[in-house]
């Protein structure tokens, strides 16, 4: 097969390190090789970027996993339109290092820079600015997709059905080999941040409803463990790109600093499990105490958007059993579900590190795209507590009945029957799948587990 290097078999899992499976792994560098793989492979094919989806979205047991890292070109930045062509395997990390010195930034960044462009589109990732800027696909001008029926360049105007099925489609419509992204201009690489502490969840949520629109970025962190009279404390952090005038002289030389590589790395031989009820409680306490009310403090981009990227392989801290992320979205009118979920988690006594709450603006037309207008809460749970599977099943029911859904890029355990309830436009997605993949070559462990139709 031309243009393919490094074909081998590997055991793969998601960032949560649960349910590993083995597949052949190829690293093609052109569309023809992917096309060839579609024609010859019988056990399913799925693309894999940087493996940062938490569950089983980027692995295909017994089949073929196509590593996207061969599509690593970063094209010329078009200063007049603020757009750039990038390969599907380019990481946001590399892209940011490329564009920040010229005064540009990605329109949407998730909580890590170590995601590929293809992965960001496939999960239709969101950032702290969803309430005003939407999700990643909203800023994709066009994308080129290799499907089993051919290679197509699609946009919101040219074949919007395929474009939007690909946005959030978890790789099940094909392999994104390149995309044109619309960037945003920035004067500096610093964020001017206001932060506030709250003792009550409803105070936090009403503050977010009343004034999030005044900031480009907004996110709140909740303490799910420690609570007084059923009230959970929280820290709300909101900010905007700092204009050059806001940068003090001492930071002048660093006004367009690019994010660096991780300074420390968790060793493979890290002890059993460092994230447990005690350590979570201690961390929550430290975080809460260190975040006093502040106005206009300057934070570097990396610290503001990607605090965990400073530690390489931080997922190893959860020990060999791994962890699950649980993120749900519910409509704006169902903020009560957030309080109920947090209450259920607190009373279960199961520790969740990193409970993150934010408001979503309007969702996209993507039938499998996660974001929908309202609230979203993200939680981390180390594997181990006996009640965890049942707790998450209960939360699913709560969320589904409130008209909400869970994020497939993080899912590793949803009950398949709830998928069509949470994503009622699943038939639209299936219709696009049948068009571009009539034989059903594209498959992942996620699509098999949830029975995603096609």
């Amino acid at each position, binding site marked *: 097969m031309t243009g393919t290097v490094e074909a081998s078999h590997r055991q793969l899992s998601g960032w949560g390190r649960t*349910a590993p*499976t083995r597949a052949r792994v190829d690293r093609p560098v052109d569309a023809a090789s992917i096309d060839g793989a579609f024609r010859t492979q019988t*056990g399913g094919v799925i693309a894999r970027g940087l493996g940062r989806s938490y569950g089983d979205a980027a692995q295909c*047991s017994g089949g073929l996993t196509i590593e996207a890292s061969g599509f690593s070109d970063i094209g010329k930045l078009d200063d007049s339109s603020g757009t750039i062509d990038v390969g599907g395997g380019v990481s946001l990390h590399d892209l940011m290092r490329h564009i920040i010195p010229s005064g540009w930034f990605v329109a949407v960044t998730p909580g890590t820079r170590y995601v590929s462009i293809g992965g960001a589109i496939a999960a239709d990732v969101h950032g702290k600015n969803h309430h005003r800027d939407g999700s990643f696909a909203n800023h994709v001008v066009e994308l080129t997709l290799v499907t089993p029926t051919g290679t197509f360049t699609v946009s919101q105007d040219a074949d919007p059905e395929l474009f939007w099925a690909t946005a959030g489609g978890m790789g099940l419509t094909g392999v994104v080999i390149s995309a044109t992204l619309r960037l945003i201009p920035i004067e500096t690489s610093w964020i001017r941040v206001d932060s506030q502490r709250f003792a009550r969840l409803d105070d936090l949520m009403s503050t977010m409803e009343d004034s999030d629109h005044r900031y480009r970025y907004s996110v709140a962190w909740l303490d799910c463990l420690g609570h007084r009279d059923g009230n959970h404390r929280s820290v709300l952090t909101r900010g905007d790109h700092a204009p050059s005038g806001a940068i003090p002289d001492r930071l002048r030389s660093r006004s367009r600093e690019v994010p660096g590589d991780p300074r420390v790395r968790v060793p493979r031989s890290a002890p059993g499990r460092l994230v447990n009820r005690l350590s979570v409680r201690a961390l929550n306490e430290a975080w809460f105490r260190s975040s006093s009310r502040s106005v206009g403090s300057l934070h570097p981009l990396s610290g503001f958007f990607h605090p965990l990227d400073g530690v390489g392989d931080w997922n190893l801290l959860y020990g060999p*059993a791994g962890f699950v992320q649980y993120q749900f979205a519910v409509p704006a009118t169902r903020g009560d579900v957030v309080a109920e979920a947090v209450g259920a988690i607190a009373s279960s006594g199961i520790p969740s590190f990193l409970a993150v709450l934010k408001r979503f603006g309007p969702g996209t037309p993507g039938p499998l795209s996660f974001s929908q207008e309202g609230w979203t809460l993200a939680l981390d749970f180390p594997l181990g507590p006996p009640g965890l599977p049942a707790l998450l099943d209960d939360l699913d029911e709560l969320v589904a009945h409130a008209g909400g859904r869970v994020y497939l890029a993080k899912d590793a*355990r949803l009950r398949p029957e709830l998928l069509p309830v949470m994503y009622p436009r699943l038939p639209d997605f299936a219709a696009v799948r049948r068009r571009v993949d009539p034989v059903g070559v594209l498959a992942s462990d996620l699509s098999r587990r949830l029975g995603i139709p096609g």
Partner: protein
Amino acid sequence: MNDAFGHPQSVIVLGGTSEIAREVVTLLAADRCRTVVLAGRDPVSLEVTATELRQSVARVEVVLFDAAATGDVDPTITRCFEIAGEAVDLVMVAVGELGAQETDEADPDRIAQMVTVNFTWPAAALSAVGAHLTRQGHGRMVVLSSVAGHRVRRSNYLYGSAKAGLDSFARGLGESLRGTGVTVHVVRPGFVRTKMTAGRSPAPFAVGPERVASDIVRGLEHGQEVIWTPGILKWVFSTLGCLPRALWRRLPG
């Protein structure tokens, strides 16, 4: 597919009338399991178990085989996978016969049969299952061993030695499959109150099959490669294993 908690969607049970296996499948059905293939010798009791499981599992199929005959292990396993009709996430090996030590030990034919049913057939089956699962890229094998194999006793060395062989074989197979997406989980129950042990006086720490099943499901959630049930037996038998033989011999039971 197995989910993050090791809850399978499709299961094959070799030794489909085992009470422990039935309890395990009942628990798994409450989670994500929707397809079960029950394989065993007695069509009547298999059908009884299948009918019971159909209340909670969408599809239950039955395959017949005899663990005393080692000639058709491979076709039997292949048939189970074909009937499952999808990727198989969990294969439980619950084949076994307790026998009657006092009468069996003097009968070479019975000894050969006990070793066949408790060791030879299950070991050959595990190997065949391992090949299928490796092709799939994932899957788990659960093997019912016994504390009787941990340190054999005068009173049941025939059953115990066969289980000891199976236990070691399964753990060795698990090592050989590292990195393939396939794992092997050895279960070491103590005295379990089932029809197999009916009429025998229970040993200390005797439990019912429900308890064994919930320990197995919990062990799978954690990815435990050796599952003692009840858990305390791990410490009891680690200690007993160190006893001088003269003392070990005198222990009751």
